[in-house]
């Protein structure tokens, strides 16, 4: 057999390949929490939650090309909203997620309005301010937020009887809850970027004036990008609390925003799968670094590694890990467009949010 294999999009062979690949991935995701240790499952849960946050940043940076350093604050708002509603108002965890989404969307939309007049690093600068202010605000309003001590949520996610999960396996139930929400968010992101809204975002990224001339409402598109992006980050915050059941202000500092940005670029900007890689990266890379070099290492530290990777990726692989993966995959399997009139040709929106420019 000669490599690479060629698959024509739309043929049954291509469908079979995609279904097989999807089933394999789904099976791995489903079986994982039952075969690995409890603490690994919890790491995976956090990785999934961070993947949603990276996805949020991806919606902004990957499609409109703007950089936000304020996403730590949106994750924080989401986490605190869930913690407060669950702990003080006895809501269920999942019920808080629509609230988080709406709240962070509104917040992001409002912040997107000044961002309209701002270009390049100015937005990064303004949102950096947001990231710095958030922990300070949390500490100031300590009546609601618990101030510096943080806020503990004392309600577990208890698996209902039909799951057959024994007591002590709450972490598995949490995993599936977080996973379910994350899947919804990823499908939403996929649909969003493939829709008219997403096309408008990409047009703006490529040429703002050109987009405006073609009838894209630039102002509305930019603010909505920021709104959705913030909303996804907020939901990620809610998901994180489902696992950690604890929030404290300094978790959501500027550092988290820069880690998100690193995860975005390392995973692969502009791709959905890159966001998953990025989310896992945020959990496992610092953990293994600390395991390997010890927590008090002088030079080999997570922050140093993040910095080196962020700079390195810019020089070596601007498309991140997913770009490398695709390059490798193209040696084995190549998917070619269907033999149809050129007018019907469309790229697969699930994998190709934007082209690297």
């Amino acid at each position, binding site marked *: 057999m000669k490599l690479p294999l060629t698959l024509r999009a739309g043929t049954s062979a291509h469908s079979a390949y995609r279904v097989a690949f999807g089933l394999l991935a789904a099976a791995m995701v489903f079986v994982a929490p039952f075969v690995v240790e409890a603490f690994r499952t919890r790491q995976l849960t956090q990785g999934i939650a961070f993947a949603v946050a990276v996805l949020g940043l991806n919606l902004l940076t990957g499609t409109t090309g703007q950089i936000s*350093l304020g996403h730590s604050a949106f994750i924080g708002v989401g986490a605190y909203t869930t913690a407060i509603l669950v702990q003080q108002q006895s809501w269920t965890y999942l019920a808080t997620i629509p609230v988080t989404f709406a709240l962070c969307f509104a917040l992001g939309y409002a912040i997107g309005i000044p961002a309209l*007049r701002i270009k390049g690093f100015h937005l990064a*600068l*303004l949102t950096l301010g947001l990231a*710095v*202010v958030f922990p300070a605000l949390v500490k100031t309003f300590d009546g609601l937020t618990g101030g510096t001590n943080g806020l503990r949520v004392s309600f577990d996610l208890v698996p209902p009887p039909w799951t057959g999960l024994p007591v002590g396996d709450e972490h598995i139930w949490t995993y599936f809850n977080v996973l379910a929400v994350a899947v919804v968010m990823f499908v939403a992101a996929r649909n969003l970027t493939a829709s008219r809204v997403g096309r408008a975002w990409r047009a703006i990224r490529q040429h703002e004036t050109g987009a405006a001339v073609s009838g894209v409402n630039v102002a509305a598109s930019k603010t909505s990008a920021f709104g959705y992006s913030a909303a996804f980050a907020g939901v990620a915050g809610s998901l994180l609390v489902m696992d950690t059941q604890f929030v404290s202000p300094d978790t959501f500092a500027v*550092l988290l925003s820069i880690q998100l940005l690193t995860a975005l670029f390392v995973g692969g900007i502009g791709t959905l799968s890159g966001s998953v890689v990025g989310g896992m990266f945020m959990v496992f890379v610092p953990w293994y670094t600390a395991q390997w070099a010890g927590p008090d290492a002088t030079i080999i530290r997570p*922050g140093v590694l993040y910095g080196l990777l*962020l*700079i390195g990726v810019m020089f070596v692989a601007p498309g991140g890990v997913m770009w490398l993966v695709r390059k490798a995959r193209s040696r084995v399997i190549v998917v070619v467009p269907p033999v149809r009139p050129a007018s019907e040709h469309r790229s697969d929106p699930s994998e190709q949010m934007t082209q690297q420019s």
Partner: protein
Amino acid sequence: MELLLQRVIDGLSNGAIYASVALAIVIVYKATRILNFAQGEMAMFATFIIYVLSVDQGLPIWGAVALGVLLAMAAGALIERGLIRPLESRSDLATVVVPLGLFILINDLAGGIWTYETRAFPALFPAGLDDYVEIGGARLRFETIGTWITFLAVFGLVFALLRFTKIGLAFRAVSSNLESSRLVGIPLGRTLMLGWALAGGIGALAGALTANATLLQPNMMLGILIYATAAAALGGFDSIGGALVGGILVGLTESLVVGYVGFIGAELRLTVAIVLLAAVLVIRPQGLFGTKTVQRI
């Protein structure tokens, strides 16, 4: 009245530090059109080196400062050559992301080497309890006077360098129009490296002044960077004089607002700078003295 005067003096004291970091930011921006998010961290690292030279190696403090400034200038030039220039033709994203990478790298590296404990920095100026002059009941400490003299000396030097020397002329030409400068034969690389070196040196000095006014700690420049960028934005990112005016205004605003608006406690100090920054960016993005950018389509 005494209290007002005291707050003005405090504001001016901080303002000198903000203005010096803002000056470094402006010089880098003029040279390469990049906002160096890592400027504060570079300054912090240089300050630790000054600390090591002075406390561990026993150099007199001003000798250590001089050596630290030189090292920081070399580091600034190297960063421009090694990390920034190769990006010249890449996307706008890269020019924002690479300084952020440097930011987190330098911060964590300093934390690893010197830990996050606070240290007292050797006094740069007479800082005894009696070292102040009284003006209308308010205390003007020698430290404040020293900070201002140092800053004005640096500002004067930079201004003279850019105004009266040949390399300064080249720098202004490059800053005004890169392509035309290249065409008339100005050595671009050397000029841009000079910009980053100058900024590195000014940053090191600003770091020493900060550590002298507060305590030495790897996170000491995080807040200062926000104030300084607010100052640079207010003055205009490409205006040297704007950095001076912006620094003073931000320092005064911070001191007066925190002093007179009750609910803004120590935690919300930075918010003042950020609100100011947002207001400038929205109302007058080019700042007070900056050049308005016009884009050809």
